């Protein structure tokens, strides 16, 4: 184990309440707080823990996004990544393009492991990790809640609908992480200062030979249908009666 690549995405902060633009052209993003996708933070934390356990492992944080994505990569460096690469793009890329871009980086970096969050909380696509594994022709272990490295393989426990599943994958491999894998560390002020000196390279899709394809045209964006507020009942007996009457219990 020599190198781990962690793919992170700049997204609207978890705590921001999203509003749809009245003309249906998208969601309002002006002046909204941006952060590292929470799942990607967990992915980075896991890479750092492996580094701390194994030693002598380089952790490279990579991202695709607008110039300001450097802020999120600086956060990654402050958490403990050794260096960062931004593939600057003013257009939002679709998951397959993101996977192709990360593959281009992987071919340069030759990581033993690539970590990603299981999904980004903006488009909720849940595709990039699986796609990267597919075109890299390497194993994928999605929704990881436990990762053990042993020699040339990893044993990964996955969160699936029925409970937990364990698979073994040969390295190099792609691992996408779920919520309960770990709790990401807090960044301390000295680390932020130190992060400013760490290398952050900026490149472009063109430089990597990637063409951002549009597979899905978004025609309109709407707010979801709202549920109507129902009635308040005063006690259990009234609740029971109401549910009984509707044949629900």
């Amino acid at each position, binding site marked *: 184990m020599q190198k781990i690549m962690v793919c992170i995405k700049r997204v609207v902060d978890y705590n921001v309440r999203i509003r749809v633009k009245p003309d249906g052209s998208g969601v309002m993003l002006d002046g909204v707080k941006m952060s590292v996708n929470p799942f990607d933070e967990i992915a980075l934390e896991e890479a750092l823990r492996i580094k701390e356990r194994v030693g002598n492992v380089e952790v490279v944080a990579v991202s695709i996004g607008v110039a300001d994505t450097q802020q999120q990569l600086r956060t990654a460096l402050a958490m403990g990544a050794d260096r960062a690469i931004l593939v600057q793009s003013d257009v939002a890329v679709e998951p397959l393009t993101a996977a192709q871009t990360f593959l281009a980086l992987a071919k340069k970096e030759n990581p033993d492991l690539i970590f990603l969050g299981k999904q980004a909380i903006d488009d909720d696509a849940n595709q990039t990790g699986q796609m990267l594994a597919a075109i890299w022709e390497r194993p994928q272990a999605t929704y990881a809640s436990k990762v053990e490295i042993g020699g040339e393989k990893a044993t990964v426990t996955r969160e699936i609908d029925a*409970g937990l599943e364990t698979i073994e994958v040969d390295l190099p491999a792609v691992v996408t992480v779920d919520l309960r894998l770990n709790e990401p560390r807090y960044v301390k002020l000295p680390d932020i200062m130190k992060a400013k000196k760490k290398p952050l390279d900026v490149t472009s899709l063109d430089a990597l030979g990637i063409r951002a394809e549009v597979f899905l045209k978004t025609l309109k964006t709407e707010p979801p249908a709202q549920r109507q507020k129902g009635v308040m009942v005063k006690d259990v007996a009234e*609740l029971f009666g109401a549910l009984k009457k509707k044949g629900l219990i």
Partner: protein
Amino acid sequence: MNKVLIIGEHDGKSVNPATAKCVTCATAIPDVEITIALFGADTAGVAAQAAAIAGVKAVVRVDRPENEHPLAAIFAPQVVALAADYTHVFGPSTSFGKDLMPRVAALLGVSQVSDLMAVESAYKFRRPIYAGNAIITVEADAARKLVATVRVASFEAAPAGGTAAVESKSLSVALPAHTRYVGAKSGSTDRPDLQTAARVVSGGRALASADNFKILYSLADKLGAAVGASRAAVDAGYAPNEMQVGQTGKIISPEIYIAIGISGAIQHLTGIKDARTIVAINKDGEAPIFEVADYGLVGDLFQVVPELEKLLGT
């Protein structure tokens, strides 16, 4: 003619109801012919079940020993080999489909429509983003293959009554050896499956301990309900993650959802907004869950729940 291939989900014994929901979704596509593909070590039994889903034209069995466990790296190249004859390839938005379908899409060189919730035309669909806080309408290129996962909470299961032809296919596809199944630990109980249950009782942080969740299990057993939990309750260790309902857990659509001691964070509401009836029990009358509940009761859950159970009788 649109030809939809649905990748059926099963555990070797029974077909997951998510499959029949994918059929309903595919039926909404105009001029459509629907085929279900089943991968497994021996799919004879599940193929008979899949063939009985109304609206299905054909069931294709792909049996080989390597297919005993649903590993995406093993299944994906076989799905790609089958996909040649179809315009659309659908899988359910379950952990099985979400793992597999993007790998299929990438091998086919296309993006995927994730969590398809409504069909507008053969290549135009609606799907949620931002935890369901916005719904987008997307259009894909009709010249390419369309790969999608189907948000199962948005569709009713197609009824039984079908008589599809079952055909076995052997695909000469080389499979990778780099991914191996080790084992599974299911939190399985005698209770109904949370994803498909008609009744769900769900608990939040207000339960205050794993031990206190017992009162929910007891109520659920009286109702014949599945038990769910909010992310807060799962994070606190009161309930295992497979019980989590919400943006990062399961998206469900039961007939009745009883939220107990759940405040109703937007990420949780994402998971339940397709429930037919929502009942909320919370001691905080200002809790956001009451904004979406059909029936709300402000009260102490530790009194309300046993009382409700008593009224339900034996």
